């Protein structure tokens, strides 16, 4: 397989994990997470630092990253649970910003905006093509695992409660059920998966910096999920591949508009992403592969 293709599919797989994460919290439970990039960066930095500074083996570091992601997700929802969705939107957005501030400012730990480089691969980088293929295989396996987990959540009686909570926030439909616990668990699982995606990203690219985890990243994941089909895990994966396709296709902007600067090319690309997002919300809000309603 062509290296370029492998790279794109690997990246798409990482985005697919992010989209599944978002689908769990937002698509299934109706809990919006505008701080997704924050949880992704937590996973990336946790795994990156544990391997480079403490020399932990990669699998163990990834596991630890997921646990940290889970704990931070649970801690955050705990405060906002009794509140309306719009507060959760504000709080999660703020959370990501605080994480970003911490990464930029705690130079002793994170090297600030210089970032962390030399993060080991999940498969040793020395293997070259083997590293590429191996990472791809592992990323796909991780997506499969996330999908399996998320879909079990979706189709279980537990998932039915989740949707009941989402569709009836007043909570009358699930009277008697422990709504709080259900929500905390789901959000925790979702942030653990976001952290896993971040860790994968770190070990795949070997370099992370706060630049990478801007709010724009959260936007990309929302776009992927919305295009694919909110509420549908398969739609989430489909959307991730679509997103990579869109982002890659937008590379052709630069050569076709040579009169503009690099900054302007980047601006055009992000404007296109914004427009695509808005068009999707206006004309195809259910996405390409809409959620099928379970009883």
């Amino acid at each position: 397989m062509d290296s370029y293709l492998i790279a794109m599919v690997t990246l798409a797989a990482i985005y697919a994990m992010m989209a599944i994460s978002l689908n769990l919290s937002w698509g299934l439970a109706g809990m919006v997470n505008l701080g997704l990039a924050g949880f992704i960066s937590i996973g990336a930095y946790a795994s990156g630092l544990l391997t480079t500074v403490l020399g932990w083996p990669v699998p163990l570091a990834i596991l630890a990253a997921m646990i940290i992601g889970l704990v931070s997700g649970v801690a955050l929802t705990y405060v906002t649970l009794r509140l309306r969705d719009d507060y959760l939107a504000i709080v999660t957005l703020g959370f990501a910003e605080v994480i970003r501030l911490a990464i930029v400012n705690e130079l002793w730990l994170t090297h600030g905006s210089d970032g962390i480089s030399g993060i080991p691969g999940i498969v040793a980088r020395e293997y070259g093509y083997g590293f590429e293929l191996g990472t791809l295989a592992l990323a796909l396996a991780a997506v499969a695992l996330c999908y399996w987990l998320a879909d079990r959540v979706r189709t279980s009686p537990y998932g039915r409660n989740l949707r009941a909570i989402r569709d009836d926030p007043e909570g009358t439909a699930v009277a008697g059920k422990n709504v709080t616990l259900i929500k905390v668990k789901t959000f925790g699982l979702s942030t653990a998966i976001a952290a896993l995606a971040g860790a994968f990203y770190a070990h795949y690219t070997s370099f992370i910096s706060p630049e990478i985890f801007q709010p724009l990243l959260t936007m990309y994941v929302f776009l992927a999920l919305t295009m694919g089909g909110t509420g549908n895990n398969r739609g989430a994966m489909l959307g991730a591949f679509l997103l990579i396709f869109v982002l890659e296709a937008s590379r052709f902007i630069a050569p076709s508009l040579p009169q503009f600067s690099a900054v302007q090319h980047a601006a055009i690309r992000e404007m296109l992403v914004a427009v695509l997002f808005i068009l999707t919300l206006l004309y195809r809000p259910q996405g390409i592969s809409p959620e099928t309603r379970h009883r």
Partner: protein
Amino acid sequence: MIETILQLAANGIMSGAVLAVAAIGFTMMFAVLRFPNFSLAGHMAGGAYAGWIANTMFGLPLPLALLCGFLVAGGIGVASDFIVLRPLRRAAPITLAIASVAISLFIENALRFGFGNDLRSFDLPLARDWVIGWLRLGPQQVQNAGLAIVAMLILFVIFTFTQTGRAMRATADNAGLAAVKGIDTEKITRLVSFLGMGLAGAAGVLLGADTSIEPLLGLKVILSVFAAAVLGGLGSIPGAVLGAFAIGIVEEASQIVVPATYKGAVGFVAILLVLSFRPSGFLGRRQT
């Protein structure tokens, strides 16, 4: 020590006044449209650039530049509402919130396309700090705070003494009932978008006059603005003003204990604390 505290309080009040202008915009739109409009950040930047152009290219003084920022940001607000949000009026609040993030992304990048990422500053007369006792006040900050307070007074008059102002508050209270009383709620919504985003733009100009402007100017302070609104109770205008002064002061005071680089985190902590202990905010009555 006491000098430092007084100095920080004075600085906090001045920056709080500017924050208040944006927080009023945010909270009044929330009251009528019922979703947190994140594109406030983009509109702040849009207004800031409009004011900057008026000031540096047309040589207008700050109050007029402020007016330009208000009008342009209000215009963009009405346009973005008409094109993107109006068709989504019946969608869930969160869908609207996310659409508003996309609007902000668009505006910020349109500015980046036109002006690049460079910091730009207003062309304002430099003046030495005023020293009153041990208090040092920057004339520019004082002027900004003064303009912010004038803007708030004008708004207060509109809301309390005009029938249109009453109609806006009535629509915020109960849009269905407002329609039954003959109010064109869609028109009111448009007006609220204009005023709300206009205020965001005016706040953008004031922030820019204080330091400098860049496409992400709004994004940098949006957390403080949200914190002010949440602190005061989402949807409450007097609450937003109080909340803004509180956040302004606490942000300045926080510099005693944490590095100034963490100023942006203060708003977040304030939000968490308020939501934990008094979710409806200082003056909010609405059940959460």
